[in-house]
């Protein structure tokens, strides 16, 4: 039961993001500005949190992800030295924070293709974004394994 509610929740969050991009339509500049607005709104991490350990490698920009578990859900926060990457992180966090690890592990990201995200960020950054998704999934997997 609880699992179903969580699943509904992540699908709703996904829909919210899809709606936002759909609303912006073909306007590249508006989409990019939207992503950057998200990035600017995402709180920064402390200097201590921006550590080598929390850094995600393989991205063009510097990216950090911190995480903790609380009552069975994962709480995520992140930062980057570029606003665009913070925007991408913000999307990931919107989806994943306060979710159960299993939900994160199972979530299929192919829907991102449909919102034209990769056209906005370009192939190289799409690659970096894949690294961010991977890191989230790895983190979730670690918590999940500790549980079972």
């Amino acid at each position: 039961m609880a699992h179903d509610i969580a699943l509904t929740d992540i699908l709703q969050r996904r829909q919210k993001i899809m709606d936002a991009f759909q609303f912006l339509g073909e306007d590249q500049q508006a989409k990019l500005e939207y992503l950057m607005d998200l990035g600017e709104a995402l709180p920064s991490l402390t200097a201590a949190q921006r550590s080598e350990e929390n850094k995600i490698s393989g991205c063009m920009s510097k990216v950090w992800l911190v995480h903790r578990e609380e009552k069975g859900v994962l709480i995520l926060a992140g930062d980057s030295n570029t606003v665009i990457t913070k925007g991408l992180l913000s999307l990931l966090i919107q989806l994943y924070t306060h979710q159960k690890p299993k939900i994160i592990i199972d979530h299929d990201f192919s829907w991102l293709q449909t919102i034209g995200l990769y056209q906005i960020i370009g192939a190289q950054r799409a690659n970096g974004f894949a690294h961010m998704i991977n890191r989230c999934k790895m983190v979730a997997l670690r918590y999940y394994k500790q549980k079972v």
Partner: protein
Amino acid sequence: MPTPSSQDSFLDTNLAAAFPILQQKIYQKSLIYLDNAATTQKPIQVIQALQQYYEQYNANIHRAAHTLSSIATRNVEDTRAMIQQWINAATTEEIIFTQGTTAAINLVAQTYAKQQLNAGDEILISLLEHHANIVPWQMLAQEKGVVLKVIPVKTDGTLDMDAFDQLLTAKTKMVALVHISSTLGIINPIEQIIQKAHARHAVVLIDGAQSIAHMPIDVQQWDVDFFVFSAHKAYGPTGLGILYGKKQYLEMMPPYQGGGGMVAHVTTHQSKYQPLPYKLEAGTPPIASICAFQEAIRFIQTIGYTKIQKIEHALLVYAQELLQKIPAITLYGTTDVKKKIGIIALNVQGMHHLDVGLLLDARGIAVRTGLLCTQPLIDYWQVDGMVRISLAVYNTFQDIAITVQALKNIIQKHGT
């Protein structure tokens, strides 16, 4: 925004019209291409020449007895002769086709320098170099124990000539220097440098990747020993570079790559090499690019360097004036327009260069961001990248005005 176009008649020419790629829209906005230092766009004549080659006379050169091969061969040799006259080389034997500037520098490093330099000999480069004129010498230094020395720059990005005078000693066997900085647009005083280097019996290689499209080249007047550039940065096709070398030095160079086209007589144990320039051109060259490059040279010569310099100078003056008025923008290197060409490196206060680049791209404006293949120079300013605007002759005052306005909007929305 007022443009100074009214008083200048040379601005009437619509050069961009000859460039099909510039007519397109990027994200519903007219493309403004300001990444010309990376590669220039190609005029329709060049594109048609490429197509013509494949439609009418595609054949391998120097080999077959058939008609197509002799047309292709003649065309390739015509290009060589055109380049010889264009840069004022003494003979066509001094013009070697390579894959690009990078390949040409590596060729000199791995043949001439490798053979002529010994452990303890010194090579002088500068802090302004593109990675292509750093790494090949580092590789040679590791391999042969030659010592790499770097001419520093002054705070305005210009070469520190006093330091050069001190670094240039009897140990200096080679000076490998960029003609025009790809990051700052600064023109180095190469004639003076060549003279001083020659007085010390050092051989000079000049990286002309950024000068060939923007100012007249005269290798004999400058008495330069090696001069290298890429066709694709001068309105020509990709995959083609030119190594000019004085015949006496090219003669000394052992063949670099072995293969077809560079040998006169081959038994399974030994080969007799072709004379210059073929000795240094193993394998099938980029024939289509070589043939089509003629049209790029013709494009430049038809406008003429005088007019090219006038146009680009006026654009640079206009762009710098507007940018200097924006407090949030930092410009790097000297803004003295007598010392540079149309390349402007900048950062926006409180913004990452990548964000600025993407926001410009979303407005249809193409610039380069990041380390710009000149990391030592970027490190000198203690930043982790820059935004680079680089001009070509087809750019317009309107391109500049729109770009500056876009930067203003970006700063207003995202700057600190």
